[in-house]
């Protein structure tokens, strides 16, 4: 009996024609996706937990490391003051450069008071009136900032009319609910 010619063999498109496929003993190889789906489900749950619909309303400066706190109070969009080891930056603009003389006295910093007063006056003119919510500032300070500098910034804010000063911190777990 003669062997069948290759022309009569079944066509198996897309698969390598090895001996097993020629004999018809091959099986369609399928990927087992169950474990991958499990992994993706865990990933999606984790990401959904850390999902923020509000987005970040503050831009953190690279020049500083914020301190960690258990405070759970939500951040609001206010005027940002960044206190680094080199400068005091208001709304993205460096106002005071830190020199030794800045760290001696404990009074408000005149240049900073002037800049903050201008900002408050501008807000008043733009909106016609000014309420308590606009008289707030967020202060971002580096962990190594000295207390005297922080106090001078805070007293400058108070003198300029910003009655509420918020310290921006990185929230760590174990915070008290507010």
């Amino acid at each position, binding site marked *: 009996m003669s062997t069948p010619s290759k022309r009569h063999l079944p066509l198996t498109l897309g698969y390598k024609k090895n001996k097993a496929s020629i004999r018809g003993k091959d099986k369609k190889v399928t990927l087992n996706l169950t474990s991958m789906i499990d992994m993706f489900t865990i990933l999606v749950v984790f990401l959904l937990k850390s999902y*923020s619909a509000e987005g970040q309303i503050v831009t953190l400066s690279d020049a500083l490391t914020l301190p*960690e706190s258990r*405070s759970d109070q939500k951040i609001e969009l206010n005027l940002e003051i960044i206190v680094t080891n080199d400068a005091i930056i208001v709304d993205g603009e460096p106002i005071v450069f830190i020199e030794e003389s800045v760290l001696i006295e404990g009074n408000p910093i005149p240049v900073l008071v002037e800049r903050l007063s201008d900002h408050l006056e501008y807000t008043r003119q733009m909106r016609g009136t000014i309420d308590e919510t606009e008289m707030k500032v967020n202060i971002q300070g580096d*962990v*190594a900032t000295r207390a005297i500098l922080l106090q001078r910034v805070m007293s400058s804010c108070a003198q300029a009319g910003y009655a509420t000063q*918020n310290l921006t911190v990185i929230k760590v777990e174990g915070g008290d609910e507010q």
Partner: protein
Amino acid sequence: MAKAATGRSHRIRHASELDLLPVMNLFCVIIPFLLLSASFLEISIIEMSPTEGISAGAGTTSLAQSEEQQLQPKIILTNEEMFLGTVFGTRSISRVFLEDRDGNMVNSYDYDALSDALEDFRGELDTAFPTIPVHKITILTVDDVRYDNIVMTIDVCALHDFDKPGLQVAAYSVLQRQILEGAGGVSP
């Protein structure tokens, strides 16, 4: 001869496999979206209370407020020691020790001891003055205390319901006077 019908199919039924590809497609879309909008660093704030030195609106004190002001404790941070000043007297909480933070050796305080002291003070306050709610606390420091030490102190205070912190900075000589003046205190 035909086989009698039994009502059962003798064909082997294979369980149909779930087609997971649409789920995979969904995950492939949703995961990059969630990765982009996830916030791994959560920012919060600590609202500071105005203190005598930084007060913006003085002159609106009611009797209850002034009583609260009289009772409000002070935490005094110097470069050697931490003190708790209350209406019952000023006492030392801990000595300064060096701690490694991000590779730098910096001054630190015993915050557990502070927590215990504040818990005791809260108990004494609730016994002696149960009708006056005291939430304000003043952090009084010397010039060069680090910001992270101030924030850690505020954190410990908040644990004991002293959640309206104020900051005052004074020279060491002024703090020493405060400590000596408060050493007597009032017995609870």
